[in-house]
């Protein structure tokens, strides 16, 4: 039963990965990257590695997403809406 959940999560990660590389807008790609990091935390727990799961949850879902969004806010064309 656990192995089936692992395989389904793996297929979902690959689908989101292809969507992130091929999307037209940059903000969509950043959101897909954050979703992939969240699903990989689930995979680390299934493979019985708790230290790695905590580290990836803190760094992948919180800090890297923030760095990308702050870089995207520098774009002058994207921020002119009130």
């Amino acid at each position, binding site marked *: 039963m656990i192995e089936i959940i692992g395989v389904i999560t793996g297929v979902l990660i690959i689908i989101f990965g*292809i969507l992130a590389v091929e999307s037209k807008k940059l903000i969509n*790609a950043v959101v897909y*990257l954050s979703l992939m990091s969240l699903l990989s935390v689930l995979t*680390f727990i299934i493979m019985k590695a708790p230290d790695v799961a905590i580290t990836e949850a803190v760094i992948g879902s919180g800090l890297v997403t923030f760095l*990308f969004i702050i870089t995207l806010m520098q774009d002058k064309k994207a921020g002119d809406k009130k």
Partner: protein
Amino acid sequence: MSQYLYIALMFVGIYGLLSQKNILKMIISLNIMELGLNLFIISTGYINDAKAPIILFGNEGNYVDPLPQAIVLTAIVIGLGVTAVALMLARNIYKTYGTYEIDEIRGENDD
């Protein structure tokens, strides 16, 4: 079966590095490749019907291989450092050239 999926994820990241023209898309593909690699390294240490490597109240038994987990713990933090420096460089490129596409940065001559 799942080791095939993680190798495929690594190659999705490599395909993204080869074919994209936007600098931020390249940095996202680099992150995808590092995610697939970490998943693959931990999957080489899994043993069927074994427990997580923490000793609880004196029971002994078979544990999962703890050495790949120690390696990946370091690799995740180094990935954060590389992403931070790459994004700072991308910001400076935007300030100098005004765009993120490498076609417009390189100029009009193609080779």
